[in-house]
């Protein structure tokens, strides 16, 4: 009954776009919009992520009294993972609060593409942690985009590094077949240029295989895979596409151990619907995995013990919940950094952008924040809006995710030329004069 009541409240609020926190705008509040999707085909992945974000903002307010005394005012807007709704949410929320939106986090590469020019014009940073435009790593061109912790080009490189390791070395990649089963959207297409570069360098045969939204029907793709017999299948899916891919792989007897999902294809809702068939399936980790760390103890103490949690307590520590918390923490720390320069007051998006671009999280600071074990040090700069490019690989053992690799670092020598080339083309097309990062402070 309690679940039903909670669902009623969450859905009512999400559908109406109503605020979870107090809607009244006080002058000492920092407004942060949350573009989320708790309904629609991707809700199974969108909801736990949003729960992590909401719980972390509430934690900052409840435990710390805000960011240096500036309370976080946030509001959810339901996008249902649709680009048009995402743009609508952005337009509606960008000017809210005393200083407008501190930053925007659309949780959709499609929405990111649609908002990139708008956010630059409105001077509101767009944080795309682990997704978004890979070329936006180049902050000289994309001043307001922050694809923190890893782009899809970093992910593609890490996936191929892991395949090479399993095969016994990069030289063993030559002549192998690697397929990419991808969501036929800007998100799914994003790794293709990098995988083409990698295929050329290492001599493997690369085959992209699109799956139409939302991915409920994949029989033809998997029959094609059965015929082509690739050595590995990389999965760039979201929502129902991931679990369906695993089930179809099982149906054609393709070994799950040879499937490697991107970090958006490696959460609990991606494997549990497939039951035993998911055992052996692997995915990249955007550094963190599932599990509880010191910050979770605070969330339980300050939020859930007071009955203010946004999900069932058992779901605290799931992969996407942790990712939502990590994303929220990076945004909060960027505001904190910006406050060092602009004062402990509500800041504009432009000021928060400075905070993001100068954010350095050391191991000691990460420990202080309670994220030790979830995150490695992050250092963002004008020329590097990604800030870190580490990853690991986890494997589903039928009951939980197990980390099966050491840390990988994406190979910048391969990624950087592509970033420079594609971002330069974007700058030329949009008539953007790249900033001189040496002069940025």
């Amino acid at each position, binding site marked *: 009954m309690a679940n039903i009541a909670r669902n009623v409240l969450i859905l009512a609020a999400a559908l109406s776009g109503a605020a979870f926190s107090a809607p009244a705008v006080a002058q000492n509040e920092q407004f942060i919009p949350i573009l989320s999707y708790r309904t629609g085909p991707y809700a199974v992945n969108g909801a736990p992520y949003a729960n992590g974000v909401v719980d972390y903002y509430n934690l900052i307010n409840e435990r710390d009294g805000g960011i240096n005394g500036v309370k976080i005012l946030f509001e959810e807007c339901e996008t249902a993972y649709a680009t048009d709704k995402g743009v609508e949410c952005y337009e509606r929320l960008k000017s809210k609060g005393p200083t407008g939106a501190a930053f925007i986090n659309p949780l959709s590469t499609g929405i990111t593409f649609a908002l990139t020019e708008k956010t630059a014009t409105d001077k509101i940073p767009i944080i795309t942690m682990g997704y978004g435009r890979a070329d936006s790593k180049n902050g000289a061109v994309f001043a307001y985009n922050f694809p923190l912790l890893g782009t899809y080009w970093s992910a593609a490189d890490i996936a191929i590094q892991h395949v090479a390791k399993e095969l016994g070395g990069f030289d063993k990649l030559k002549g192998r077949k690697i397929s990419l089963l991808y969501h036929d959207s800007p998100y799914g297409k994003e790794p293709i240029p990098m995988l083409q570069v990698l295929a050329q360098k290492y001599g493997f045969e690369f085959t*992209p295989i*699109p*799956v139409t939204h939302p991915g409920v029907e994949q029989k033809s793709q998997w029959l094609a895979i059965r015929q082509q017999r690739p050595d590995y299948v990389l999965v760039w899916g979201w929502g129902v596409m991931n679990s369906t891919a695993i*089930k179809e792989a099982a149906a054609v007897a393709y070994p799950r151990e040879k499937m490697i999902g991107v970090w958006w294809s490696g959460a609990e809702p991606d494997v549990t619907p497939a039951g035993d068939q998911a055992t052996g399936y692997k995915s990249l980790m955007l550094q963190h995995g599932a599990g509880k760390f010191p910050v979770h103890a605070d969330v339980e103490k300050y939020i859930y013990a007071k009955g203010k949690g946004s999900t069932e307590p058992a779901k605290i520590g799931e992969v996407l919940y942790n990712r939502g918390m990590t994303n929220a923490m990076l945004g909060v720390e960027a505001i904190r950094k910006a406050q060092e320069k602009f004062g402990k007051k509500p800041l504009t998006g432009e000021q928060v952008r400075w905070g993001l671009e100068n954010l350095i999280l050391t191991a000691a600071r990460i420990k202080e924040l309670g994220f030790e074990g979830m995150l490695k040090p992050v250092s963002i700069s004008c020329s590097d809006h990604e800030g870190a490019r580490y990853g690991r690989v986890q494997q589903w053992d039928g009951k939980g995710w197990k980390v099966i690799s050491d840390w990988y670092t994406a190979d910048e020598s391969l990624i950087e030329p592509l970033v420079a080339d594609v971002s330069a083309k974007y700058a030329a097309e949009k008539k953007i004069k790249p900033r001189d990062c040496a002069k940025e402070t």
Partner: protein
Amino acid sequence: MIAFGQFLEVLIGGLMSGVLYSLVALGFVLIFKASGVFNYAQGAMVLLAGLALVRALDLLVANGFPLWVAVVLGIGFAAVIMAATAWLIERFVVGPLVNQDALTLFMSTIGVTFVIEGVAEMIFGSDVYPLRLFPTDAWFLFEGLFPGGILVNKLDVWGALIAGILVAGLALFFQRTKTGRALRAVADDHLAAHSVGIPISWIWFVVWLAAGLVALVAATVWGTKLGVQFSITFLALKALPVLIIGGLTSIPGAIVGGLIVGAGEKIAEVYLGPSIGGGIEYWFAYVLALAVLLVRPQGLFGERIIERI
């Protein structure tokens, strides 16, 4: 020989997938055939039926009921939910719209779709709920003849069997029962049927209930295939080309339409897709549907409606 074996595999897989689309299409046909309403909410009804079944099943199993008892009770509970839904739709939506034009009734079912989706997720949750009523592994046939054999998924075979039984049952119902004939009369003309004493409210309740039960059957198969979740509502989009090809008023047409769509889209995706970028099966099904529309606007098995002025 290998290429022929692979083609056979794609063809059989496509035909089987098509039958699963037909399971959803049948619900559309039932309501259109019996009431002249194009029920946009059929996909949402599959979601509602699936959620009611799987949540009841999980609860009963968690409380120590043997699986078979839980399945029977779960199906019973879901059937009651679908009956309640049918009553509510008849009472508050289509009932008050008797004798309105088809477009008005169609628009009302769009509203019903969003209400069902929202309420179903609100009551039963929006996670993915695994349902395992049928085997999902595969047979590999003719392994001696073709290397690797020809893959046939057991779930697809179950789906085909169920669809066959449903079609036979529904055909008998429409042709041989008094209620079935009354349903057809109401579809032809609401007011005329009412004037000769056919109780329209009851008939519409029966037809929406029948469509709800067909949705429940579809949910058992598709829920096993995908897990019960919101994306099941997208099956309505897969059923549309099936309906266009088979005809909105023909139950066997839903099956034949499904077979054509399933086989056509899979063969197109596997053999044509790679040369033009892939991901073509969704729209290719509509290409097939358009081709049929141009030749037979009423579909291959649909009734040609002639209205005298």
